[in-house]
């Protein structure tokens, strides 16, 4: 279709004057955020000044490494999964497009807690069975080393720690896919046309032109989902892995100090998510400052 000749409209007469009243700025200040930080500081002080709390803290803090490592690893895998699923969602290839959509809709239709049980106790065993069968096939084809490795792969060899990471990654991959898809679709189609008209392939255009812009646009959303994942990582405690939630439950069960255990646990999550949110806000602000459009 023909483009309508676009005439840059300049209707300065109807532009709304900027309202800059000092009260307005005061209202915009994130007081709630200051409140959150104060609560975190007060709670930390509380924990360190009481013997019982200090004991609970020292017991529970051991789990923080697991929580951080699990969240980070799962997030990196989820980003890769999400990027490819997001690209699949906008692919014009019917098979790829439908597979990506199936994955995303399937994951989004199941509660995360149920998904974690399912992936850990059903998904992983099925995958191991499948790999065993591939191993047998490879052995019959004469690829002995890989074949042997795959046939000998045992369900129990995959630790709950690893299953927790797989479960979180597969779940969040579907969420991140929608973020990537939205980011890519936010880039005007002229960018793809300009790239293709210069002789770039679809892949090159994505890699050098579309994705750098798209990812920049969705960076805040990606950061927010990382914060969300740190919180949701508490769900993997149902797999009896030693993340801070599970360790806090253990402490509570052993010492019967439920209050100390769960106050400490709550504060630890709050501190982690607050620190991460501040980081995301900082990055967002810097991006906005460098905006070049």
């Amino acid at each position, binding site marked *: 279709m023909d483009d309508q000749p676009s005439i840059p409209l300049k209707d300065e007469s109807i532009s709304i004057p900027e309202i800059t009243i000092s009260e307005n700025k005061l209202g915009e200040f994130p007081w709630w955020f200051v409140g959150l930080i104060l609560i975190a500081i007060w709670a930390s002080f509380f924990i360190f000044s009481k013997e019982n709390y200090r004991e609970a803290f020292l017991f529970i803090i051991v789990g923080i490494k697991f929580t951080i490592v699990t969240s980070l690893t799962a997030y990196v895998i989820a980003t890769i999964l999400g990027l490819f699923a997001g690209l699949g969602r906008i692919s014009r290839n019917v098979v790829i497009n439908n597979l990506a959509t199936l994955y995303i809709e399937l994951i989004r239709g199941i509660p995360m807690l149920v998904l974690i049980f399912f992936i850990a106790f059903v998904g992983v065993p099925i995958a191991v069975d499948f790999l065993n069968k591939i191993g047998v096939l490879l052995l019959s084809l004469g690829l002995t080393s890989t074949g042997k490795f795959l046939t000998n792969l045992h369900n129990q060899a995959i630790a709950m720690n690893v299953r927790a990471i797989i479960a979180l990654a597969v779940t969040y991959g579907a969420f991140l896919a929608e973020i990537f898809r939205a980011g890519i679709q936010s880039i005007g189609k002229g960018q793809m046309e300009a790239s293709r008209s210069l002789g770039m392939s679809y892949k090159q255009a994505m890699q050098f032109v579309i994705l750098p*812009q798209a990812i920049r646009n969705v960076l805040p959303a990606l950061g927010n989902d990382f914060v969300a994942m740190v919180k949701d990582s508490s769900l993997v405690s149902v797999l009896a892995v030693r993340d801070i939630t599970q360790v806090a439950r253990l402490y509570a069960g052993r010492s019967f100090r439920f209050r100390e255990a769960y106050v400490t646990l709550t504060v630890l999550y709050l501190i982690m998510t607050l620190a991460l949110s501040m980081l995301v806000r900082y990055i967002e602000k810097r991006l906005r400052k460098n905006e070049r*459009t």
Partner: protein
Amino acid sequence: MNAPDNIIEIKNLHKHFGHVKALNGVNINIQRGKVVVIIGPSGSGKSTLLRCINYLEIPTKGEIWIDGELLTNDQKHLNEIRAEIGMVFQLFNLFPHLTALENITLAQKVVRRRSSEEAKEIALKQLRRVGIPEKADVYPGQLSGGQQQRVAIARALAMNPKIMLFDEPTSALDPEMIKEVLDVMLDLAREGMTMVCVSHEMGFARSAADEIIFIDEGLIVEQTTPAELFTNPKEERTKLFLSQILHH
């Protein structure tokens, strides 16, 4: 079958968008080194025609031959041919995350496989040609419309295309910036570049075009020299269109 001097041959080109028939059997031959300006009312199919030449729109029916090669859906072949056809868009379509220089070097590096130094050298040469070498390290967002369009032209030229397509290159510009872009296009025409332009700039058409094609309702109504078209249009529709755009 293909005469050697025809760099573009369009045969019985049809393009339908659902029920809308944008092109209804267009035949055009364009000789190497000629400047062809396509004019026509809004919605006449002129942009669609231009976009079919490098397969940004895939024709519903018909054939496009570029320098003796038939365009097909074979993506690899298509990428090779597109590298030989520069295109300039109405809305510039510069890459906003790259500087002017990087805009010009990117495709040289990934498509033409030139080294960074070579690509940079060529980019600077093209920026000098379009008159803004001092803007090399500036991002598109900080350039005026006219400057952006000149970077876009430099970006296309850096690929050493055989053909340049212009899709209403001045329609989105403020009036005072139109001349700087047209000057670059005029220079290019004088240097013997094969150019196909969809444009409303009748002054440019008059002084640079070897041929003017008037399109309406997806068909070529008249194809002649600018002198002939402006002074002695044959078709009623051409007369009507010219009277609308020339005497307002």
